[in-house]
């Protein structure tokens, strides 16, 4: 089959690789009908997530048709049309049973590496480096899905692939980011980053009852999308100081909740951001947390900082004193996709939201190298790329 393989920083290729096969009794094989590139893939693309190996198959947003099932698979049937959460979860451990699916104890074969780095290991993830299990990803024609009965969600007829594909990651991710804000009547939520995750966080914040939502970015078409699709007020942080602006817009109080939908490769131009760039380039700092710093300083006292943006390691110059003295709440983590998938599918079915609206580029799997480049550089007004594996 054809698969998008990582061969080093900014070097992805479409290789011919063997087809996946059933390895464990709860596995299924999916013939992929649509897949996407995520902002998280850019962290791999740029070489900032350690433990990637040349030849690793990328991709964690994918869906398709079940073509083969393992001997212990009971619920899922050949021919089912399914979406696949990007987190791999067993369904039986302490964490899965408490709806904390991305913290599953039993899906990471390389848990020992993660334990060294983080103290404990989180769930295995598709196509996301060997620390997270080294699973082959879904930017390919076929994929093996472990724990198929737990990790495959059947899609009813009448919905297109494009409408449901983002249930695998970015829609639940934006939703969980908003839910983590514990939104109360009258609340203002400010969202740093108007990429796909930020856009879904904006939409979800309104769904969960926010009074006002403010989107912050510098890319004009993303701000435009936040305004039109998300109905957010927007701030271009290159034109005004975003922290000052949100404070002014909220009567000096600051937003009740702030979402960092940017993550470890934030853009920034001030002296500290340059310091981050240099340290990250020579690997003295793993993450570039410009947005996180701003979010902490901007958030109102006693408010909530919600972090869907991915961080991998050690962060410098986090204003922890501000966080402490303002009594902030922090919520973060990889998304518990399994928790949100069915309720959000219902929202799509009801016509409350059409996630496909954010797709700007429809390309062939073969064109993945170009697609990565366009998405990374935000060329050609790119916001979200889907890849057709056929």
């Amino acid at each position, binding site marked *: 089959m054809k698969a998008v393989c990582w*061969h080093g920083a900014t070097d992805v*290729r479409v290789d011919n*690789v063997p087809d996946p096969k059933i390895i*464990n009794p709860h596995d299924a094989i999916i013939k992929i009908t649509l897949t996407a590139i995520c902002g998280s893939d850019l962290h791999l693309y740029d070489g900032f997530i350690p433990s990637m190996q040349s*030849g690793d198959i990328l991709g964690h947003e994918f869906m398709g048709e079940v073509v083969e099932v393992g001997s212990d698979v009971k619920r899922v049937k050949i021919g089912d049309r399914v979406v696949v959460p990007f987190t791999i979860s067993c369904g*039986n451990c302490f964490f899965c049973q408490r709806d904390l699916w991305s913290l599953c*104890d039993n899906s990471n074969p390389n848990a020992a590496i993660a*334990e060294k780095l983080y103290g404990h290991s989180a769930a*295995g993830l598709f196509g996301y480096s060997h620390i997270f299990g080294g699973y082959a990803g879904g930017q390919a024609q076929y994929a093996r899905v472990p724990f198929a009965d737990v990790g495959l969600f059947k899609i009813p007829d009448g919905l297109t692939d494009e409408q449901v594909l983002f249930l695998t990651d970015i829609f639940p991710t934006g939703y969980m980011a908003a839910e983590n804000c514990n939104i109360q009547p009258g609340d203002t939520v400010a969202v740093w980053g108007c990429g796909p995750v930020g856009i879904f966080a904006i939409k979800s914040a309104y769904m969960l009852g926010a009074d006002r939502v403010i989107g912050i970015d510098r890319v004009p078409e993303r701000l435009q999308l936040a305004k039109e699709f998300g109905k957010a007020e927007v701030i271009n942080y290159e034109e005004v100081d975003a922290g000052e602006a949100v404070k002014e817009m909220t009567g000096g109080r600051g937003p009740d909740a702030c979402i960092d939908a940017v993550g470890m490769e934030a853009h920034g131009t001030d002296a500290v951001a340059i310091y981050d760039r240099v340290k990250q380039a020579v690997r003295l700092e793993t993450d570039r947390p410009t947005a996180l710093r701003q979010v902490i300083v901007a958030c109102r006292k006693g408010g909530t900082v919600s972090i869907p943006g991915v961080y991998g390691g050690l962060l410098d110059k986090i204003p922890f004193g501000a966080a402490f003295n303002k009594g902030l709440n922090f919520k973060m983590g990889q998304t518990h996709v399994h928790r949100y998938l069915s309720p959000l599918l219902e929202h799509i079915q009801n016509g409350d939201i059409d996630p496909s609206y954010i797709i700007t580029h429809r390309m062939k799997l073969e064109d993945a190298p170009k697609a990565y480049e366009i998405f990374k550089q935000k060329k050609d007004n790119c916001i979200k790329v889907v890849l057709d594996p056929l």
Partner: protein
Amino acid sequence: MEEVTNQSNLQSQSASDSKGESERWASIIGGSAMVLMGLQQRSLRGALMAVAGGSLALHGAKSEKSLPATIADATGINKSIRVEKTVTINRSASDLYNFWHDLENLPTFMQHLKSVKVHDDKRSHWIATAPLGASVEWDAEIVSDQPDRLIAWASVEGADVDNSGFVRFQPAPQGRGTEVKVVLEYNPPGGALTGALAKLFGEEPEQQIGAELSRFKQLMEAGEIATTEGQPSGRS
């Protein structure tokens, strides 16, 4: 108490010290502190023998040392490998005890074991892989067997590698399953085998035992052991 050096010594001691014995059992079976920290300079084997009443003809006496062993002692390369690791598993103590109690199940999650053959309810034969296609073998006896709580074992005379250990099953607080603690001690003989043994248990035996316990957990909770072996990549 000082290190037990032979069987008769051990028996007389355990007979005359039953209060101390029950305290020691309490520390092994019931305690939540680090077992090895409690043992400090004492050997695990000695402690197990003492509390079990020492009915076995067990190898491991230190009375007469060979020259290599003496050198090894002096240079510190003869230090025993001691490991303690605990994992919480979302199953009942009795499910876990029953699976473990059939020692022949152990190689399904302990990668360094080639096989375990059970002879009777006390004795079993263990074969472990060693580097360069070699293997090490030993007979072990169950020193203590307490249903749903604890299984302790020790190698007997003639073992390639003197070793002992126990696994303890303890209910975790409300709805959190069972805490499974494994404590192992290997006393490598001096000389060539020492190096082989170090390789056998890796640079960090603690990590290896941790990985094995996490495979045990995966098997018990998820019904399979997570792996990516055999999946495609752009390397093949």
